[in-house]
């Protein structure tokens, strides 16, 4: 197009020696100018990105709470659970969990030599009622479950925009303002802990009540559990009973073959529990 050549000539005008008709730009000159422009832009961008990223290195979100001092873990003793569902109800109230979705739930197992039966009516929220099974059930127990806040999470690995992350004190959370609702993390979680919140259209799950534990409280489910089935602890605290149990007792985790390193530890789990 004629216009473009004119524009180029104007640029070249500035560099042309006085008194001479400027020649049309040669290939080399044109390419050189283009490269200079591009590299200048890249340098500018690198600078601005660096300035933005390193704005306040090391500043903690809240001066009173330092996440370097804590590393949380959860312990569940399945021999104590009575399946009352108080934890499920408390979580729903504390976190505003939508109906039909569960940040935590309780499963019932009935196991015999001829078969096994598992259920979780409404996540266990209204407790359990007796059930008939078609085999002789020799053992039966409840298993509370929630997000395991794994160290080697498959869910964070697959988040395409970095909306899901793990804090330094060991809690996995979702940034609701950045989650695009693609559902990849929901597919990737081997424990079924995640769901897409129908109101916000973002991924949602148990956060170990981060808004409570950073204020010295326990998660709501632990606070209401009447039989001390659920216990919450800090691996960085010296005399923490949860820490002692995890370090010295025989503990189990869910689906260990997947190497997700869950931080919810179970005492007295059965082989049927997945």
């Amino acid at each position: 197009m004629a216009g473009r050549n004119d524009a180029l000539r104007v640029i070249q005008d500035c560099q042309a020696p006085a008194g001479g008709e400027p020649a049309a730009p040669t290939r080399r000159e044109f390419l050189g100018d283009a490269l200079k422009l591009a590299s200048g832009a890249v340098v500018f961008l690198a600078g601005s990105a660096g300035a933005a990223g390193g704005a306040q290195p090391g500043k903690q979100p809240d001066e009173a709470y330092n996440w370097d001092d804590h590393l949380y873990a959860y312990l569940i003793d399945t021999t104590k659970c009575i399946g009352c569902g108080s934890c499920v109800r408390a979580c729903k109230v504390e976190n505003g969990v939508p109906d039909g979705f569960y940040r935590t739930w309780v499963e019932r197992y009935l196991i015999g030599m001829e078969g096994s039966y598992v259920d979780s009516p409404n996540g266990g929220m209204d407790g359990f009622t007796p059930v008939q099974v078609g085999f002789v059930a020799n053992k039966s127990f409840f298993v509370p479950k929630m997000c395991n806040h794994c160290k080697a999470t498959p869910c964070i690995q697959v988040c395409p925009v970095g909306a899901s992350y793990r804090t330094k004190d060991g809690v996995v959370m979702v940034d609701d303002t950045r989650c695009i609702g693609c559902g990849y993390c929901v597919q990737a979680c081997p424990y079924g802990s995640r769901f897409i919140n129908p109101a916000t259209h973002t991924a949602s799950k148990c956060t170990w009540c981060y808004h409570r534990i950073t204020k010295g409280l326990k998660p709501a489910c632990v606070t209401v559990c009447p039989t001390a089935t659920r216990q919450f602890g800090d691996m960085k605290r010296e005399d923490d009973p949860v820490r002692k149990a995890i370090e010295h007792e025989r503990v189990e985790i869910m689906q260990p073959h997947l190497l997700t390193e869950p931080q919810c530890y179970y005492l007295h789990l059965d082989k049927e529990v997945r």
Partner: protein
Amino acid sequence: MEHARHVFRVALVVVLALVVFMLTRGLLVPKSYGMYGPYRHDNVAEQMNARKPAFGGAQACADCHVEQSKKRAAGRHKTVNCEVCHGPLRQHVKEDGSIDPMPVDRSFTLCTRCHRKLVTRPASFPQVVPEQHVNGPLEGKICLECHDPHSPKL
């Protein structure tokens, strides 16, 4: 090279597009992104303050309800948090300190949710078959006719 002019032009168009993209991207990346990892670090503080805690724990109730707390702590329900039966603290004590009446479910369904006999419950846990445990129909506040919920053992 005379005949490759169009190649240089299209290459320039591509480079320009890339530069525009990088410029735009630089403006749109959030400030605290990347500080501690590939996420927006400001969200950590946001999550800490996302909600006001709703449950207070038994100790919070004891601050005002001394009698009931003492009775409960001496009885068999000493490990049962008040809020299991009564509801969360926030329903009763509002953020500005004002008091709303605390709801309480006195029906038998609240008791049977924990104490109905299920083969799944630990054998040592106190549980009954409600229909056999009670003289008469199972309805209303029948459990409370004999048991004090704050110290239920007879």
